[in-house]
């Protein structure tokens, strides 16, 4: 076996090696630990790009861990969708890490870098795995790391929100296990491709149990994706987390969406007989409601970070409006919007932090404060991030929303989707304009501004995220074609089953 054969496991192996190395060297040589962490992110990006290059022509690579053949062993599956998500994770990880190092947020605790690497390992593993129980394990890895990262920096507000976050996710994990137990009892397998083949043969008497298992599984993914009415944990958690961490968390809700996109067509797809697309009727209204709640939250938020957290909910809702169509066109548009909305939400969290660092006691509250340093530059970054999240031209959110609208027009209830997406865009624009004018234009007369920060280096990372949004808009033709190819591959579970199981799927 050459290195190329093992490429699939590198996105999991690199952070798994880097994290303990960080723990070991951090106490004595802080800079070395930071270098290891940054190098690991760069290597992950390289590995993810190599995987994307390999998956580009539609190859589905199955990697049997320990060389145990599927469905008996655990497999990792790298297809277009997984490769896109890996590249997105590595890019976002690099930006968030750079922001943490530049703003010295990583120095508030000893184990920031180790937890950060474990978080990336959990994310990468969740995107790669082809086994349902393994998905649970990687979910736990990323959640446990996220508990540590969320509490990084500590303080009463974080601890209070942390308890709620941990409790909500523990209940979610328990439900996940119950769903897995039901599915295993019904099908006798945990491999997703194998399960998809066996679900069709389930006896009519067991269809009720299968539906319960499917809906439980979807509820768990909806909890991770912060889909209404399971979104209540998100806002407080994301708003109080260290901003660099919150920027990375922008992809955590997308893991839930990814799991939905992966599991529903493969296990409960068209071949599932009576249980085909069981969750579909529930996802659609929930997605509409989350889009409304999220962007209404953007409208009423009292702080920049809170606004960004609500924007995450709203963009996940918009994304799931597209996904719940389960057609190639709508899913492709959704995947394009997924990449965009993750980067846009991260940019918004970073801009909120940059502004908060310059406003002294006013922090990121949406009230007129002192005239702070670099006001024009930070204001411009906020304007662009707001444009990105709301989905206005010229950034890629506009194209993403346009494609979602176009794909939704082919569906029977397109009026609801159009009304909600266009209405929420308007609400978001007004919300961003209100907060932006209060923070960047108005000045409280008696407010005393803090001294100007020593360097403007912290503006680099939001600028980088915004530049990526611009690049995504410039390369939208290529990116949307790739997203559509990925969607076509995901909606063809038979091809994936052939690659994983090495035989023709029934």
């Amino acid at each position, binding site marked *: 076996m050459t290195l190329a054969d093992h490429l699939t496991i590198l996105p999991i192996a690199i952070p798994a090696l880097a994290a303990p190395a960080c723990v070991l060297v951090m106490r004595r040589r802080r800079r070395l630990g930071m270098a290891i962490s940054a190098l690991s992110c760069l290597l992950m990006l390289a590995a993810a790009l190599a995987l994307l290059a390999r998956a580009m022509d539609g190859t589905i690579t199955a990697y049997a861990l320990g060389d145990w053949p599927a469905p008996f062993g655990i497999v990792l599956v790298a297809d277009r969708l997984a490769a896109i998500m890996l590249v997105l994770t590595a890019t976002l990880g690099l930006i968030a890490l750079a922001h943490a190092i530049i703003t010295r947020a990583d120095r508030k605790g000893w184990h920031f870098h180790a937890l950060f690497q474990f978080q990336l390992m959990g994310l990468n593993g969740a995107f790669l795995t082809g086994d349902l129980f393994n998905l649970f394990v990687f979910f736990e890895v990323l959640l446990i790391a996220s508990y540590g990262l969320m509490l990084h920096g500590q303080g009463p507000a974080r601890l209070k929100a942390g308890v709620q976050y941990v409790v909500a996710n*523990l209940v979610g994990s328990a439900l996940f296990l119950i769903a897995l137990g039901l599915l295993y009892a019904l099908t006798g397998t945990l491999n997703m491709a194998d399960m998809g083949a066996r679900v069709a043969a389930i006896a009519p008497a067991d269809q009720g149990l299968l539906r319960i298992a499917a809906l439980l599984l979807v509820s768990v993914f909806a909890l991770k994706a912060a889909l209404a009415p399971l979104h209540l944990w998100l806002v407080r958690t994301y708003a109080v987390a260290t901003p660099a961490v919150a920027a990375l968390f922008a992809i955590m809700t997308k893991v839930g969406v990814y799991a939905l996109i992966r599991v529903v067509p493969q296990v409960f797809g068209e071949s599932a007989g009576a249980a085909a697309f069981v969750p579909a009727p529930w996802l659609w209204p929930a997605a509409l409601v989350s889009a409304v709640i999220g962007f209404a939250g953007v409208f009423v938020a009292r702080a920049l970070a809170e606004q960004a957290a609500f924007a995450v909910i709203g963009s996940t809702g918009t994304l799931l409006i597209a996904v719940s169509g389960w057609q190639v066109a709508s899913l492709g548009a959704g995947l394009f919007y997924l990449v965009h909305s993750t980067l846009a939400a991260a940019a918004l969290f970073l801009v909120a932090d940059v502004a908060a660092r310059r406003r002294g006691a006013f922090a990121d509250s949406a009230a007129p404060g002192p005239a702070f340093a670099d006001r024009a530059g930070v204001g411009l970054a906020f304007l662009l991030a707001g444009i990105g999240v709301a989905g206005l031209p010229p950034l890629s959110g506009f194209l993403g929303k346009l494609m979602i609208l176009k794909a939704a027009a082919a569906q029977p209830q397109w009026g609801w989707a159009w009304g909600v997406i266009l209405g929420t865009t308007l609400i978001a624009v007004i919300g961003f304009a209100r907060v932006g004018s209060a923070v960047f234009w108005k000045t409280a007369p008696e407010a005393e501004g803090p001294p100007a920060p020593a360097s403007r280096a912290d503006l680099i990372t939001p600028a980088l995220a915004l530049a990526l949004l611009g690049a995504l808009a410039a390369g939208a033709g290529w990116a949307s074609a790739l997203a559509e190819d990925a969607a076509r591959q995901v909606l063809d579970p038979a091809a994936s089953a052939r690659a994983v199981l090495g035989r023709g799927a029934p």
Partner: protein
Amino acid sequence: MTYEFLVASAIGVLVAGGIYLALRARTFQVVLGLTLISHAVNLFLFASGRLVLARPPILAKGVNHYTDPLPQALVLTAIVITFGMTALVVILALRSFLETGSDHVDGAIVPCDGQDGMAESAGEGEAP
């Protein structure tokens, strides 16, 4: 009464108690509730391999009926994870109580008073 009925009702009772406790306002009850739920989940996962008595889990000559070893491996993983998570949430609840002076889950700042027994026991501890 069959073995299945016993296990099923045990899971049901544990889940019911767990949900009741998890919906309480104070962190310690919530932690206990989560522990009960995770016990129920472990039992449930174990039962998903079917309940059979005195069957070997390992391939052997002359044996036709086996018990399924996979759910037992899954339960082991689940136990390890929930054990770690329970430890974390206990520490987290304690830190949260010490920093905010309130053990309410929903973030309402309700200082503990003598009614809870908190104030007295703290006073007694310091007295000598």
